[in-house]
């Protein structure tokens, strides 16, 4: 049965946006909490996120989601009040309920029940809540308010600080009086700095059945306890030293509950939200401007060669001015599309925790350079490759705990994920301090699997052997796990990164660890390319793949095993004829035929270089990448199309796949 929610599409959009934000925050912060269980500010932000989620769910009347967030909120409240301890098992339960919330959120889009068992998820949360002391729920019992003055006293005092809790038995007929007695008894034995309910409420006769206080005393905890224990109908008296939790770091948020559900502070005066599709259209238009500018400059130089007069000089001034404006506009629009890579990286602590727990390995994930900005399209495209590299680092890279200890390495493995910008590129590295990739092992494995003859394997250099991790079907892992070890994936990582005009490199040292380094362009929308013609078509070769350009004469061409090659310096370069590769017949140029010359564009994929034979070179240009439409996406060897200043369409070559296609033949 389809679900119905009483919401407009606009409200759904707002709900989704905020809910996604809160869920992402929870995922990240809860994993962090496991390591920093005494971080008050962190707990507060987690609690606030859960509270906001509850409010959102209530607003659109998603009752099951509201019910689950309510249960989650109560548990978090207990954590916040130190009534519950952070344990890996509890974090598991909380993360599981966050996952359930994600499925419930999706119901809004699918309009179908996701099969999430809310009742049992709530039950698991309640089990923890009940395990911590049977006390009234958060809603009925306001927490202890620690004002800055109290905190100052706590920090300055030379007496010991205690947190005291006591509960009046439900059977009591005068709980207010019992609370008053407890407060009075404690006040005699200690200096009560703060209490819940507060003293004036106790005087008036409170409805609470639970008493909590922070007090300074020179007596020992047992004395305080027995002072309260003399009062009848009072149970569950706890006297605990009050330390770290109330001596917050300088920067942490005030402990007194900030207005729950308060929205994160957004500076409304300086920021405007803009739709991604709108930004994409702006980007496209700017791209067209860049292309038209090139065309205009072309016309201008044509005119100038025909004999300059005043008009041409004027035109020159205008085009120079226009160029400057277009460049700036282009840069600004590009910048508007940039988002910090943190929007992707914040997902990873959760992922690493899940993977390491399943594999029973201890992993410390270090993230650097979260603030590095990247074009949104690039961030979307690198998500899967980076996830794969992280899983690989934990599963294949890091040794099992026992082995690490035997080798004298720290028990906890380190995985580092870093991003930084460099010369118009972004560099992302995933490194581990694990076993490294053993070239000898790679050779053996390839021979055992029948992928290489023993002689061919022996002939490989160490770095070539290591590069084999990028081949399909290669894995040195002995047993296959459900995460990795099937030998699929690394080749896809490389293909995906190279489709983005990026590259992947490996640095590894046996016993010390492995680093994968991804180099990517800052944007995918516009790339510098070399325009060439072949068979009457214009093709754009991404400059990131171009090594150099040469004139090619028929006499330079030699044949090895039936394939054309040329000798370039001390290197043998295989030749690729686009025409034959693309089955283009009736080529207007002569280069379609074996043995004929033309222009040679040397291109590179990883460590493989090859020579593309084309008719003519047109020159270098910025091109705006466009899809070729639904019927033509996914053609091997083509990355898309671009409309040139003249209105003609240039097809953009996908160099990695062209080299792969050629190698297959």
């Amino acid at each position, binding site marked *: 049965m389809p679900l119905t929610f009483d919401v407009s599409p606009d409200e759904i959009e707002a709900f989704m946006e905020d809910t996604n934000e809160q869920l992402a925050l929870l995922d990240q912060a809860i994993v962090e909490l496991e390591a920093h269980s005494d971080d008050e500010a962190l707990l507060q932000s987690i609690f606030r996120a859960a509270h906001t989620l509850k409010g959102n769910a209530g607003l659109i009347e998603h009752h099951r989601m509201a019910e689950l967030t309510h249960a989650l909120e109560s548990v978090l409240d207990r954590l916040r009040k130190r009534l519950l301890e952070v344990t890996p098992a509890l974090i598991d339960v909380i993360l599981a309920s966050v996952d359930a919330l994600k499925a419930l959120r999706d119901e809004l889009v699918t309009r179908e029940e996701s099969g999430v068992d809310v009742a049992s998820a709530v039950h698991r949360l309640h089990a923890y809540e009940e395990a911590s002391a049977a006390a009234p729920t958060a809603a009925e019992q306001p927490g202890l308010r620690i004002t800055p003055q109290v905190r100052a006293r706590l920090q300055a005092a030379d007496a010991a600080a205690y947190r005291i809790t006591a509960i009046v038995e439900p059977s009591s007929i005068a709980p207010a009086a019992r609370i008053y007695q407890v407060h009075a008894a404690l006040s005699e034995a200690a200096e009560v700095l703060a209490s819940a309910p507060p003293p004036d409420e106790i005087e008036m006769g409170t409805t609470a059945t639970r008493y909590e206080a922070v007090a300074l005393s020179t007596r020992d905890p047992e004395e305080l306890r027995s002072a309260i224990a003399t009062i009848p109908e009072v149970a569950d008296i706890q006297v605990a030293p009050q330390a770290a939790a109330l001596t917050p770091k300088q920067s942490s948020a005030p402990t007194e509950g900030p207005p729950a559900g308060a929205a994160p502070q957004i500076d409304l005066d300086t920021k405007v939200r803009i739709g991604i599709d709108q930004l994409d259209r702006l980007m496209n238009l700017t791209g067209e401007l860049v292309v038209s500018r090139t065309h205009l400059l072309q016309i201008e130089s044509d005119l100038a060669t025909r004999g300059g007069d005043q008009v041409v000089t004027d035109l020159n001034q205008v085009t120079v001015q226009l160029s400057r404006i277009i460049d700036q506009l282009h840069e600004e629009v590009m910048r508007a599309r940039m988002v910090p890579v943190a929007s992707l990286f914040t997902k990873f602590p959760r992922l690493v925790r899940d993977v390491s727990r399943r594999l029973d390995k201890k992993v410390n994930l270090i993230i650097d350079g979260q603030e590095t900005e990247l074009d949104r399209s690039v961030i979307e495209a690198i998500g899967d490759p980076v996830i794969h590299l992280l899983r690989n680092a934990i599963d294949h890279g890091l040794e099992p705990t026992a082995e690490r200890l035997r080798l004298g390495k720290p028990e906890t493995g380190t995985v580092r994920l870093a991003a930084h910008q460099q010369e118009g590129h972004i560099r992302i590295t995933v490194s581990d301090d694990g076993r490294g990739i053993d070239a000898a092992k790679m050779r053996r494995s390839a021979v055992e699997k029948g992928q290489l003859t023993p002689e061919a394997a022996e002939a490989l250099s160490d770095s070539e052997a290591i590069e084999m991790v990028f081949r399909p079907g290669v894995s040195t892992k002995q047993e296959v796990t459900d995460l990795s070890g099937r030998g699929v994936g690394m080749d896809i990582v490389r293909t995906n990164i190279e489709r983005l005009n990026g590259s992947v490199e490996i640095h590894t040292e046996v016993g010390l660890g492995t680093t994968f380094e991804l180099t990517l362009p800052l944007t995918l929308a516009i790339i510098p390319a070399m325009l060439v013609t072949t068979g009457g078509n214009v093709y754009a070769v991404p400059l990131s793949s171009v090594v150099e350009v040469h004139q090619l004469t028929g006499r330079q061409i030699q044949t090895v095993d039936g394939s054309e090659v040329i000798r370039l310096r001390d290197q043998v370069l295989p030749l690729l004829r686009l025409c034959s590769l693309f089955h283009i017949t009736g080529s207007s140029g002569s280069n379609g035929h074996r043995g004929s010359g033309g222009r040679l564009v040397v291109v590179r994929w990883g460590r493989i270089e090859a020579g593309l034979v084309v008719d003519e070179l047109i020159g270098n240009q910025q091109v705006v990448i466009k899809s070729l439409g639904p019927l033509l996406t996914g053609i*091997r060897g083509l990355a898309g199309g671009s409309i040139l200043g003249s209105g003609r369409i240039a097809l953009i070559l996908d160099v990695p796949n062209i080299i792969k296609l050629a190698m297959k033949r």
Partner: protein
Amino acid sequence: MAIETKAQVSEEQVVVFSLAEELYGLDISRVQGIIKMPEVTRVPRAAEFVEGVINLRGEIVPIIDLRKRFRLGEHGNDADTRIINVEMGDHLVGLIVDAVEEVLNIPSDAIEPPPELVTTVDSAYLRGIAKLQERLVILLDLDRVLCTAEQQAIGRLSAEAA
């Protein structure tokens, strides 16, 4: 089929075009525009019936040769050749036809379900046949024509990749 009453005969607006001596009709609501043959950029390794791509006001639009699509034999382009641009989801696709004839209002009760084995085009692509006085207009099911085209194109690509 919805229940029809004679009292209110609804009409369909159809763009009629000719292809290999027969008349075909396309639902006008899916037609974005009709243009003469512009310069076509051929796309290597594309499916056989994909003629190439054109620049339609700054957008790259793939072009399908309907004759090739339906295996109706070559014709070559002439002064009557047109491209009908139709919407396919968020994208445009151009269809090359021999000539565009007219826009017709066809009463729903003149439309009959596609007969088996009568037309030269596979009946899976047909929505029905409209009988108008002495003429027959074959109504195309655009989604089927494009969808199977896409599947074929993709199927071919993955067969190649394997």
